[in-house]
């Protein structure tokens, strides 16, 4: 049975396909075989025996990727024993990888994937260096089957939230991060001395310093939360000093310096609907995503309320309303995050050979009037059911039948 399912061929026919990697194709067919995209185009022959999905009048896009949530790590925010995202008491938690904390049975997964979100970055919480984030598909009974890439990024914080780890000063935070990175460098050349304790105390454990090596080698990106312009500039400075693959997150005042960010080749993950001023970012505004993109910055969008990761669509729509071109907004929730986390060879667009994460919509994915018709994750036609749809059915007529 499993072999049969895997061998199943699905043809999504007649829809308007937005491959993201190229221009939209009208009346096109997307062929899915063995969980991969086997063909896409206007003149694709549908093999006999393929399961046909009629998408006439529908829109077909890659599954959406949310770039910053805690899916599987945070069942109920306010209930501590359902939270797995943070390694308590460790301000430098570079060796902490969230993957084994992820609960594949989380209710949040079914609720959000049926709205078109097919993959998310599961991000740790913390204070200075949070740990390692994992990129996951929102389908699978085990973390092995959900995993796309782990670690996908190291995560650190240079915003107001990290001040405690820097003795109460932003300058202290930056100095501490540099000290950790310096120590990681030193550790890499003197592992034997470290083990024999023939080295002065380093600022983190061996495991944490070891975990930072791929970051220092530029292999693993470092996501840095920073919102104030000067914090963003500190992040860029540190990125340059250590030749890191930097990704900015938050970046509320990034709109002030798009040229600087673009010149550094640093992508930015923003939450378009964030516009409430705080002393961390008095210049925060709705136009951030649009202004960054206009300045040549690679923009990725996020929805940080994990239970409502589905509102990533609304985030994108509002980014468009505030000036981000629609095509760039769609890219910012599909191919761009795939590129930024190094999986664009497999994810983020509808191209032959890529993983078949595909959504069939009744219209523009960002519009409230649009419904989801089909969600394919790794080629599986996901049931559009969740605990919430079951509640709806139970209480559709009152009194309920228990």
């Amino acid at each position, binding site marked *: 049975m499993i072999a049969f399912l895997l061998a199943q061929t699905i043809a999504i026919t007649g829809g308007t396909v937005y491959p993201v990697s190229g221009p939209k194709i009208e009346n096109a067919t997307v062929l899915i075989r063995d969980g991969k995209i086997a063909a896409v185009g206007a003149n694709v022959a549908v093999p006999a025996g393929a399961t046909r999905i009629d998408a006439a009048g529908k829109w077909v896009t890659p599954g959406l990727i949310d770039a910053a949530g805690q899916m599987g790590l*945070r069942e109920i*925010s306010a209930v501590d024993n359902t939270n797995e995202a943070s390694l308590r008491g460790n301000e430098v938690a570079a060796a902490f990888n969230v993957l084994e904390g992820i609960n594949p049975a989380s209710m949040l997964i079914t*609720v959000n994937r049926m709205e078109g979100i097919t993959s998310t970055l599961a991000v740790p919480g913390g204070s200075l260096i949070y740990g390692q984030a994992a990129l996951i598909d929102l389908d699978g009974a085990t973390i092995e089957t959900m995993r796309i890439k782990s670690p996908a990024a190291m995560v650190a914080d240079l915003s107001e939230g990290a001040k405690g780890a820097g003795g109460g000063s932003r300058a202290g935070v930056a100095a501490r991060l540099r000290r950790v990175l310096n120590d990681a460098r030193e550790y890499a050349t003197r592992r034997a001395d470290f083990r024999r304790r023939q080295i002065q105390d380093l600022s983190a454990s061996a495991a944490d310093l070891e975990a930072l090596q791929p970051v220092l080698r530029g292999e693993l990106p470092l996501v840095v939360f920073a919102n104030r312009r000067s914090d963003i500039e500190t992040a860029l400075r540190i990125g340059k000093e250590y030749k890191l693959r930097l990704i900015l997150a938050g970046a509320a005042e990034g709109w002030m310096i798009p040229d600087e960010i673009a010149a550094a080749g640093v992508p930015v993950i923003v939450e378009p609907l964030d516009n409430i001023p705080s002393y961390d970012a008095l210049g925060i505004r709705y136009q951030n995503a649009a202004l960054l993109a206009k300045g040549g910055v690679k923009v990725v969008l996020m929805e940080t309320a994990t239970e409502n990761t589905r509102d990533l669509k609304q985030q994108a729509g509002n980014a468009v309303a505030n000036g981000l071109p629609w095509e760039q907004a769609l890219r910012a929730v599909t191919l761009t995050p795939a590129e930024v986390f190094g999986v664009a060879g497999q994810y983020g667009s509808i191209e032959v050979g890529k993983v078949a994460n595909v959504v069939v919509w009744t219209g523009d994915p960002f519009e409230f009037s649009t419904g989801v018709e089909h969600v394919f994750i790794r080629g599986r036609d996901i049931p559009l059911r969740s605990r919430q749809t079951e509640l709806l059915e139970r209480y559709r007529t009152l009194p309920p039948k228990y």
Partner: protein
Amino acid sequence: MRRSGVQQMKAAVIVAIMVAAGCASGAARARSGSSPAPATAAAAPAAQAAAAQDTSSAIGPQYPSTYKRHPNPPVLIKNATIMTAAGQEIQGGSILFRDGRIVSVGTSVQAPSDAVVVDGTGKWVTPGVIDVHSHIGVYAAPGTFAESDGNEATNPVTAEVWAEHSFWPQDPQIPLAIAGGVTTIQALPGSANLIGGRSAVLKLIPARSVQEMKFPGARYGLKMACGENPKRVYQNRGPSTRMGNMAGYRAAFIEAQGYRRRWDKWNKDHQGDPPERNLRNETLAEVLRGNIYVQNHCYRADEMLQMLDLAHEFGFKIRSFHHAVEAYKIGDVLAREGTAVSIWSDWWGFKEEAMDGIYENAALVQQAGGRVVIHSDDPGGIQRLNQEAAKAMYHGRRAGIPITRDQAVRWFTANPAWVLGIDSVVGTLEPGKMADVVLWSADPLSVYAQALQVYNDGWLVYDRNDPAHQPKTDFTLGQP
């Protein structure tokens, strides 16, 4: 304020101060010491009528509204799609307002010679957005402890505090909400307490004082809160359980019953000295008299039913449950009781008592005959209540529940006006109503729509294309 995790990393301070916030209710007194400023007789606020019931223990007007209508030329918006929230969606429609009052709405409205004419071609018009659940001004940005004035979390019953005494009119969140089309809010105390205090119903306009913003003639609300918040905040001194919560409300209202009796007697016979005033009981007695509306933060269906029993025990009405993520489980009861629900479109799961939130909550309650309001409880959400209503409408429709566009617009206009008891004054686009009007760039039920112009009582308080009409608070001056 519910957000956590990554957002917490980004906005730790705001999240931290909001921990105990998040619920609202209000009670209002209908004393008419301040007069509204309608220039046309048609619209003398109905809220004034409520004053007749006022047999309050207080002597004389308290903290009166000093609201004055801003003088403006008449305005005609022509050739727009006008969603009246009174049953009509008029294509190619025009709306004329003068001296703060809507004069006419329709397809053949003539502009007087002195009117400012606004071309509404390709645009939409709705009534001003009303948010019945806001902590703007009492939990002001930039969100430090210094601005954390929403929860008097020193006693589980603080009916004596009034949100208006915390309200900071220079909160930079105010212009953001105005830019989202909001013209009236109910600013509420937070939900740390069983009984949090009085709300303030405010015109959302630039002002030096909260008094200048107080909606003329509007009643107060009384904020009450069920469930997790009070029992968490007071777990060491009590209440620490839901049964403790119920005992707390009952004890407070029993005391208020005695207070009310003493004052009612004295008001009748004026024998001897008047009873000693007690601010806590004064507010609760007004609730018992029906002059202050109960605005009750309550998530779970079973708890809402407990609160309805409480209201029956003491003979008051609950005007609206707030948050009410499980309202759809008891839509029939809510309709029968005449209690509205003020809810989000899709918030769920951020706390245990919010686990059962579903997209179709609004639609199911509407279908059951209940009164639905989309509220924010959030300085971000207040800027897009139209979007939240759209989400709830379309999800209802996809579930086969036939919600009309007019009903969806009522969710953020006419229905919240009813919850605040000002529905005869604002909430729809009908002649005689106060000219709270929003011009949208597109269908307001689209994600791409933005408020282009916002008129509050006829005053152009926001124009997206004219910096001269984009108010800034003092706080924002000189900032990036």
